[in-house]
């Protein structure tokens, strides 16, 4: 079982080594990186490449570790008890399995994506330590132990909003997706838009990397933004020359809304463009 990238996802060598190490040693893989570098998509692509099921557990600020194991619906049981429902005699009827349970008991090894683990409370990773390490947990209500027959491949993503505890990190493999260089970026674009005009791509990439180099941007445009922008450029049938004409930042690139997501950044760029024009004029 090895992962070497897919038709729609370009992996660098280091990323595939990390993934394969995680698969081989059955350890979780922690993925960090700039937003928009394909952290979340990665799990889906691994699932596709290996022909596995993807179980997606997206973490929110209110998510508790227990939600991933199971939830016990005591209220429904009480109500059933009053109504004299037969179901009430078996507590198992009121246990709702969570995503981890689902992953542990799947028929074949699934991919479990724990997305944006840093969104949850600061103690959340600690609460999952044993469960992810031993891949088993105990259900108090039914006195049963849920144990993974086949250890799922666990991919965890983090945006670095909170620091993760050391004990948790020690149990994971770690990979930091760095921003792709121009060459990798060209491969990524090629994968997503095979029929795109070469010149348009070349010009668009030039503008894109130039934009990333503008100092002081609050949010630098990332891969996913470039792909969106290219989509728009193609939909509007913008000619490469339209991109070319705006030499060295004298004009704001067309359809910039896809690249710049904050008002301050647009203002900054407008100001820079204005200065440029004045210098030359």
């Amino acid at each position: 079982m090895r992962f070497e990238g897919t038709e729609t996802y370009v992996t660098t060598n280091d990323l595939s080594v990390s993934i394969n190490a995680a698969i081989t040693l059955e350890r979780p893989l922690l993925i960090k990186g700039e937003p928009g570098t394909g952290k979340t998509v990665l799990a889906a692509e691994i699932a596709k490449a290996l022909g596995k099921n993807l179980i997606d557990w997206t973490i929110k600020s209110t998510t508790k570790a227990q939600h991933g194991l199971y939830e016990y619906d005591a209220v429904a049981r009480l109500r059933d008890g009053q109504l004299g429902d037969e179901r009430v005699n078996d507590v198992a009827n009121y246990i709702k399995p969570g995503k981890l349970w689902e992953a542990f008991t799947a028929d074949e090894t699934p991919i479990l994506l724990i997305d944006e683990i840093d969104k949850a409370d600061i103690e959340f990773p600690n609460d999952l330590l044993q469960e992810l390490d031993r891949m088993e947990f105990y259900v108090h209500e039914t006195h049963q132990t849920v144990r993974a027959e086949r250890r799922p491949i666990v991919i965890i993503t983090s945006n670095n909003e909170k620091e993760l505890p050391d004990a948790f990190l020690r149990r994971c493999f770690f990979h930091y997706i760095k921003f792709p260089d121009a060459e990798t970026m060209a491969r990524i674009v090629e994968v997503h838009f095979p029929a795109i005009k070469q010149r348009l791509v070349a010009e668009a990439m030039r503008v894109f990397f130039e934009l990333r180099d503008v100092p002081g941007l609050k949010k630098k445009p990332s891969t996913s933004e470039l792909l969106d922008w290219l989509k728009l450029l193609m939909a509007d049938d913008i000619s490469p020359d339209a991109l070319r004409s705006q030499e060295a930042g004298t004009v704001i690139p067309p359809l910039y809304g896809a690249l710049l997501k904050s008002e301050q950044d647009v203002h900054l760029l407008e100001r820079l463009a204005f200065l440029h024009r004045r210098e030359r004029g």
Partner: protein
Amino acid sequence: MFTGLFLGLKEAGVPVSLREYLDLLAATQAGVADQSVDDFYYLARTSLVKDERHLDRFDRVFAHVFKGLEKPEGEEGTAEIPEEWLKKLAELSLTDEEKEAIEAMGGWEKLMETLKQRMEEQEKRHQGGSKWIGTAGTSPFGAYGYNPEGVRIGQDGNRNFSAVKVWDKREFKDLDGEVEINTRNIKVALRRLRRFAREGAATELDIDDTINSTAKNAGWLDLKMVAERHNAVKLLLMLDIGGSMDWHIRACEELFSAARSEFKHLEAWYFHNCLYENVWRENIRRHRQTTPTWEVLHTYPSDYKLVLVGDASMSPYEIAVPGGSVEHFNEESGEAWLRRVLQVYPKAVWLNPVPQERWRYTGSIGMVHEIMDGRMYPLTLEGLDDAMRELS
């Protein structure tokens, strides 16, 4: 097997444990990386480094440990630095005197030798330093505007053709950062401050109320819900900035960034040395956009908890005397302002980045300490813990 690497990492301050080392060995044994040294590098990186801040340090240790292991091959990764080019680069920015100095040292060849030697020395001595060649006036190398980042000299002794290995590219340099108190620790300490209060939509079962109303309902279940508990602590943060605090700004910003994500209500203001009639929000605009302290006092009610961060190291006049401020003429003394603020916010602490054992050598620290009624704590984890206990 790779004990050298493991120990090297430990020494360089990368937090590695035996567990990760064993993982690496297991993965190597399982054949995850049997094709090339590059793959082994990736594998070692993914299993031993858990934080992007340490990636650069890892690269350096790896380069050091496996120096000369791989023969320089591979066309694309080859960086060629022609000597002439280097020479020209240097000559461009040299004055005649400096050229003479080079001649005196035995000419260009000799100089390059010395340079190489010195670079090697320096690299060994400060592992982790970002300046390889110092800027000190006496070193002949500082004058060339020689930038080791811009022009590399290979470490394997072959200057003209040195393969730039993956780890030698040091792509993660920008991510390295020595953090003294790490933000996680700060956050954990700040959690002590959490005061939970119920706010928002009713999503949790209120057991007591449910039992009560069920009993009143003649035993038929009557559910009562309450809102989930949220952290309701309101925090007013005042940071000393500029002057003697420049040394501590880093620590302050750490605290600030940690605090921001931990509390819903957090207001931060800056002041310089001592609190006077004006404070400001953004340090860049401190001279243009200030806010009267009175306004701050009127805006935030007294259930806010006040945290002052500053080294309190200044001339005693700045605290005690009207007009004592170094920046402007203050109508009222800093002490008057401090006492006024403390009156509005009874729950207050002063965090001081200066180590506690040095407090008694600075008179002004003693004065502030007294004004604060002894509620001054060092900016360490323990101090933070004590301060939070005082506030809660």
